[in-house]
């Protein structure tokens, strides 16, 4: 288990090279090797969505992908999209609407929401609910999250909320 492979990838715009065990999954690599602790681990089964990340522009489960599979990839985490301001409107809407309580699911939820709105800013409530069904929230009951995403979608597509 101690054999390592060297992996080169880009994380939040920075080039990273590390020798890692092949069995290490991507979210553990980010959290433990790079101290990017904004991505959370909820189930390690690919069910709860707390570890949702963006790899080469697509959202993935950080617990279902090995870090060595990210060789050459562009990885973005909540830290990256926060610092760039890309999802500032979503974060503001979540804050105003209290679309988070404990905040453990929130980074994954925001990345899933951003993914939906990038593809379809006019998504309706049912489409929003379906898209975030892979991201579990145990606190809010989801309605505030749907409200917040819907409000941002409307603003982005030029409709008044």
């Amino acid at each position, binding site marked *: 288990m101690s054999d390592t492979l060297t992996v080169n990838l880009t994380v939040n715009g920075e080039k990273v090279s590390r020798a890692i065990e092949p069995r290490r999954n991507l979210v553990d690599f980010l959290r433990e090797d790079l101290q990017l602790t904004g991505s959370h681990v909820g189930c390690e089964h690919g069910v709860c969505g707390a570890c949702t990340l963006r790899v080469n522009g697509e959202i993935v489960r950080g617990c279902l992908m090995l870090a060595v599979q990210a060789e050459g990839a562009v990885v973005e985490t909540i*830290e990256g999209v*926060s610092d760039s301001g890309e999802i500032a409107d979503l974060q503001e809407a979540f804050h105003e609407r209290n679309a988070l309580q404990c905040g453990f699911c929130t980074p994954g939820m925001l990345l899933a929401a951003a993914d939906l709105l990038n593809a379809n800013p006019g998504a309706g409530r049912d489409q929003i609910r379906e898209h*975030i069904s892979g991201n579990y929230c*145990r*606190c809010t009951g989801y309605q*505030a999250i*749907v409200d917040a995403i819907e409000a941002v979608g409307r603003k982005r597509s030029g409709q008044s909320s």
Partner: protein
Amino acid sequence: MTEKSPLTVLDRPNSFIGKSVSRAGAKRLLEGRGTFVDDMTLPRMVHVAFCRSPFAHAKFGAINSEAAKAASGIISVVTGRELAEYCTPWVGVLTHLQGLKSAPQHAIALDKACWQGEAVVAVIAETRSQAEDAVELVEIDYQELPVVADMETALDDATPVIHSDLGDNLCFQREVDIGEVDKAFADAHCVVEETFNFGRHTGVCLETRAIIADYNPSEEHLTVYLSAQAPHMMKNLYAKHFGLNEDKVRVVCKDVGGSFGIKVHTYPDEMATGALSIMLKRPVKFNADRLESFVTDIHARDHRVKARMAVSKEGKFLAIDMDDLTGIGPYSVYPRTSGIEANQVINLTGGPYTIENYRANARVVFTNKNGMCQYRAVGHPIACAVGEGLVDAAARAMDMDPVELRRRNLIPDDAYPYTYATGLVYEQLSHHQCLDKLLEMMDYDGLRREQAEYRDKGIHRGIGFASMIEVTNPSPAFYGVGGAFISSQEGCTMRLDHTGGITCTVGVTEQGQGSDAVMAQVAATAVGVPMENIRIVSGDTDVVPYGGGTWASRAAGIGGEAALRAGKALRENLLEIAAIILQADAAALDIQDGAVVDADGGTERMPLSELGRIVYFRGDTLPKDVQPELVVTRHYVPKAFPFAFTNGVEAFYVEVDVDTGFVKLLKCWVVDDCGTIINPMLVDEQIRGGVVQGIGGALYEECLYDERGQYLNATMADYLTPMAMEMPDIEVGHVETPTKDSELGAKGVGEAGTTGAPAAIMNAINDAIQPFGKHVSDMPFTPERILKALGKV
């Protein structure tokens, strides 16, 4: 005071009470910059993983850990006997639950495992993965023992006794018999009878339990970073069981990724982590993985209730007679015990109604399953579903509208204070007002018409109600009187800094519900400063006043009152100094928007930053006999009533597919009365989140065990929790009846939604399938159970 001065703090100018202020503390979480326990790494920190019993009941003898000790990165392999030198066992009893008994429980089992998942050996390594690898290498010689899996037979003579020293498998029994129950049933026009089953479920906090224990032998000082709700309670228990001076134990709760009652108990693996830190003289981290979480986080419910109700010809409820049985695992959980849920069930059933004859028997029995203890709404969903299920059964039997039947029996709004048959004292409830408001919100008559139209088309929709009461703001009657060091008081220390900012340290803890935000709103209002001038510090026992933390819907009502009292006291001190500086009468001054102003007219006299500058840096300019005190502490403990009861009503509109058994939740309405509402948005979100956890228990969630005590669905793929797609929009309304026990008047709200949802959903399903002459009463209402009830499978 001038005649324009407000009557109470709630009426102050620029009040933030009643405003939907966003939570300042949420911003870090939105950027992934929170600090959950697993986000932390300390120097020399090591990780522990546990060998856990694969059997529900087994003795074990020889433990061979040679191969594990030789594995890469291993620091130590520790057995229960070795660890017992560092941690004494505990017994989960409370003296006010008379007769409740349990066996001594160790951090790591000594020679016998009593449930599948109990820790048997600890493996400590440089990394968690190395520890997990070595767990596989430990050889343990298990001898399986007969398993007590069925609570129904746990007390039979033929069933083995789990702890022979206790004599039997009965943990606790309580009987109440009030009024003339037999006579009431004999005189009844109608008697309805039902058996209700409530499946085991659990909290599934998205952040699993996590702890870092950091023992410093040079000072004999232990610091514990914990994902938990009650830091002072844990501080006491660590000192007690590790043999430390309690003054040298510090518990720090930073961000907590959901708790819901799960993180307010003593867990053996967490105690083991603390003891290992003392043994190894270095920081040790334990973070449960999801499997460990399912098999060791406390479970709840798992009650079987047989109940009947007598009703008069006029539709008056005459009597309730019930028998509650619950299986709580092999130990009563420490220190809150596993007797509380059953106790609540027999205290609260029928609680919204004027019922004078009441008999109940509750038995709490040991089983070889994971431990059960207090989870959000403790006992309430069971009591509510039993009571409301009987009400709807009576409505069906008597062919009455369920709303009309409730109206005839709900305690009148002008009948308070009111003492219920079981002795519960209600200060002032508003059942009828809440019901009226709910019916208006949902357009009840229109909905009934719509239901009839759909029924004609072969679509089966149902409407279900649940009136409810909720225990909030508990006094020491809950735990303190039973001998547990669980505080019912709360405190707030408030300090004006020279900048004009105010730092508040509070005993209540933030779990995401927004208690920090609510404390800030109360503090800002009581002193008279903008929200951005307030900073809240919570969760660190070295810093905050002694308090109980977050449980039993107490943070806003008890912690809020402490903050209010501290704010008023600080304001008084500030005005006294301001009057000296300004050579004015303190009574003619006020503090508004962060400045000292003329009480009459509001003209600014001096910003608080100027007052702070003078006090902190130019004390020489103040009179010699004046010593300003810009730090105050105030506490509050409820005394007038054992609990501040709240009330409310929920309704669900559902559609049952009678071919597949699937239930679609179309809409939910809630009207709740939690007294003074400090932050309407946060209150509504507590209700919505609570309702959805109630939906989980009603439709999806169940910890399934087989007859050997093997847990069958311990993954998030197999244990179903509510997902966004299936959840309805939930409309929330309010009636506000403040408690007079505090100036703030706030009662709790965190558990209301969870209390009523299962009952309302059950009644809605039964309303939908009524044309088939069938009904359901076993939760969760899975498609299979509904089809079985309909006779289709």
